[in-house]
């Protein structure tokens, strides 16, 4: 019989302590907690949860293995379809995906699928004597090379899958480090760097070459790749161009995009004395927006020693797009919320640095196309809030570079690359795409799911082209 009752809480670093460090907030289940949580699963015959997972992990199967104490077996089961379980178990918005469809959700609390996934992955990492590297399925395929543009989760997935098939794969990455948003965007207190490094190493151990500092579209073009040695190209360049507000004073110094703020800290380590990239410790930081990026910016600002951090958001709490868990974490850490408030203009001091924001009060009107109630300005409600740092975290658009340098590549009006959903192929034969570059800002697991589809599409394309069985 399955054990009823609520799910096991995730042990966490104490809020007062964790705002002083960048160590991981969630500490992970103990064995006892994991087994207890696994016992909550009803092992449903029709597995409703699986449909909620973009890579269709056989969720009850791995949970039953945890229940039986076979943690490595559980990890292997997950790895059949998800090559980055330690990452997904941490950053997937599970409550919107697998856990949303868990049968127990209707009765109370779903099985903590993500936490169990993380437990299995971490256990395996801690207890294996180095990951066993699978032999390529078909060594014959090594004479065919595939280029992957972008080393985020989409690119890493395509590269890993194709290398397992036997292909020779090279990833070209614009930055000096791997991981894409996993490194420069998501802070290490949510995704520790050693976990990311381990996953990247694993992909490399499959024989994938990673060449950094290559900006495709500038160093060379997509068509050069097709002409000079590659059978196919996968474009996984993400959605890296920051959206701004376009209001007065936005270019005052002290105003950052979410990307700049996070990149300075996560990638360049600006908050640490021995690193050269500078950052100013805010007295009062205001973060505009309420998505996951905004939460990450605010929580990072707390950790580098800001006196006060406030999230400014034009709708109400119910509409905040960030994960509930992250909003709670942020509030526990001392981040304040200023809701139904919208910046009208930024005010600078005599040195051209921001010192205040003029804001307007908002109220909620009729639902808009997204179903959320539309914020409406309260006329004459202007008021001033002081801030010496402003972080505009309103989301990202695809970077136009590949689009503008690849002739014949069809894109949506907003910049997303158009693909055949079944194969991942773009309008150019042999050029595939997936992840945020196609969908706009989405999730790690959906980028990986797209990577899987494209890897299959590429395999099929190359086999057909060369008449391979």
């Amino acid at each position, binding site marked *: 019989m399955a054990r009823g009752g609520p799910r096991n809480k995730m042990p966490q670093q104490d809020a007062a302590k964790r705002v002083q460090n960048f160590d991981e907030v969630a500490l992970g289940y103990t064995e006892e907690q994991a087994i207890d949580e696994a016992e909550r699963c009803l092992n449903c015959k029709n597995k409703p949860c699986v449909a909620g997972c973009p890579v269709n992990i056989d969720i009850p199967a791995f949970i039953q293995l945890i229940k039986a104490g076979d943690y490595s077996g559980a990890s292997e089961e997950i790895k059949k379809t998800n090559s980055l379980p330690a990452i997904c178990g941490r950053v997937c918005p599970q409550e919107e995906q697998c856990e949303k469809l868990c049968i127990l959700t209707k009765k109370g609390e779903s099985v903590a699928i993500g936490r169990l996934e993380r437990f299995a992955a971490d256990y395996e990492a801690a207890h294996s004597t180095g990951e066993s590297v699978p032999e390529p399925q078909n060594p014959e395929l090594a004479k065919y090379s595939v280029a992957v543009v972008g080393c985020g989760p989409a690119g890493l997935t395509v590269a890993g899958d194709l290398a397992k098939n036997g292909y020779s794969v090279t990833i070209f990455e614009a930055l000096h480090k791997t991981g894409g948003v996993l490194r420069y965007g998501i802070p290490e207190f949510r995704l520790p760097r050693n976990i990311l490094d381990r996953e990247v190493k694993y992909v490399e151990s499959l024989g994938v070459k990673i060449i950094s500092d290559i900006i495709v579209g500038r160093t060379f073009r997509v068509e050069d790749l097709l002409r000079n040695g590659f059978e196919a190209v996968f474009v996984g360049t993400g959605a890296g161009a920051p959206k701004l507000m376009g209001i007065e004073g936005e270019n005052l110094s002290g105003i950052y995009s979410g990307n700049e703020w996070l990149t300075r800290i996560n990638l360049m380590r600006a908050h640490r004395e021995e690193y050269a*990239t500078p950052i100013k410790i805010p007295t009062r930081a205001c973060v505009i927006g309420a998505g996951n990026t905004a939460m990450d910016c605010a929580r990072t600002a707390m950790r580098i020693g800001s006196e006060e951090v406030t999230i400014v958001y034009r709708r109400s709490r119910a509409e905040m797009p960030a994960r509930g868990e992250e909003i709670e974490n942020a509030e526990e850490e001392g981040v304040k919320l200023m809701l139904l408030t919208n910046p009208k203009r930024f005010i600078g001091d005599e040195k051209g640095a921001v010192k205040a924001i003029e804001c307007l009060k908002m109220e909620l009107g009729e639902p808009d196309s997204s179903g959320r109630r539309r914020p409406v300005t309260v006329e004459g409600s202007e008021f001033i809030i002081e801030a010496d740092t402003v972080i505009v975290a309103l989301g990202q658009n695809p970077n136009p570079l590949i689009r503008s340098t690849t002739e014949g590549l069809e894109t949506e009006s907003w910049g997303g690359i158009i693909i055949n959903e079944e194969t991942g192929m773009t309008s150019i034969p042999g050029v595939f795409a997936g992840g945020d570059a196609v969908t706009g800002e989405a999730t790690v697991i959906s980028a990986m799911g797209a990577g899987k589809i494209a890897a299959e599409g590429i395999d099929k394309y190359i086999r057909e082209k060369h008449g391979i069985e």
Partner: protein
Amino acid sequence: MCSKDHGEMCNLAELTPDSMRNTIVRKQKLSPVLTLFEIRAPLIANSAKPGQFVIVWTGEHGERLPLTISDWDVANGTITLIFQEVGRGTIELGRLNEGDDILSLAGPLGKPTDIENFGTAVAIGGGVGTAIARPVAYALKQAGNELITIVGAREKSLIILEDELRGFSDDLIITTDDGSYGRKGLVTEPLKELLESRKIDFVVAIGPLPMMRAVSDTTRPYGVKTIVSLDAIMIDGTGMCGGCRVTVGGKTKFTCVDGPDFDAHQVDWDELRARKAFYFDEERKDREAATAGGDN
């Protein structure tokens, strides 16, 4: 795509992290504070155009530094950077020697300068900006312009590339602030005389912000198209962070992808100056540590 002597370039699938090492093949001190590196970077050499830059990262603790591609040699697969040691990053870079690898070198970045046959063109370089102006000036000459080059510096020892510039310019004017070489004064003085005395069709100015701004103010009354290369503070150089934004003609632009060249008469100079000065205190601390700290 292929050029002699680096077979691996013919086939991009054969590139390896090791074959991509950016080795310094020549180091030359051009003046006490100016250093020239010729660096093996065949892919960048192959794609570089006048006005473009690279981003250099020297190691784990380093900053990403944008530096203009001052010259490139496709046959040898090298690019040349000329940089002034102004702070921690450039001081540390200057400590590297021939045979050392630059850990990370990405490019070419930015839009190439729009080069046309405008008629009579004036290319102005101030200080290290002369190194940046060199390829643009050369391309202007190649495109058929009559080329007048003006080079300005604080004092004689800071004048660089004189012979080379003289070689391809129709006229070369040198100014120093202290009069230790060439004319005494600022580059805007001979520029103004030129604008007064003859038809000038195009001006490009690259150097310290106050100099570019002064050039802009000088040409504005004459309505002469004037291009400047802006050096906003950058991180990625690929359009990802927005840290390099500038206001040009009332619109927000990202210097690294929309520029670095912009119409001088449209630039919001006060804003650029403020954004560039924002980290002054942090930079000074780092610079002092770098100068005091020796080689580690």
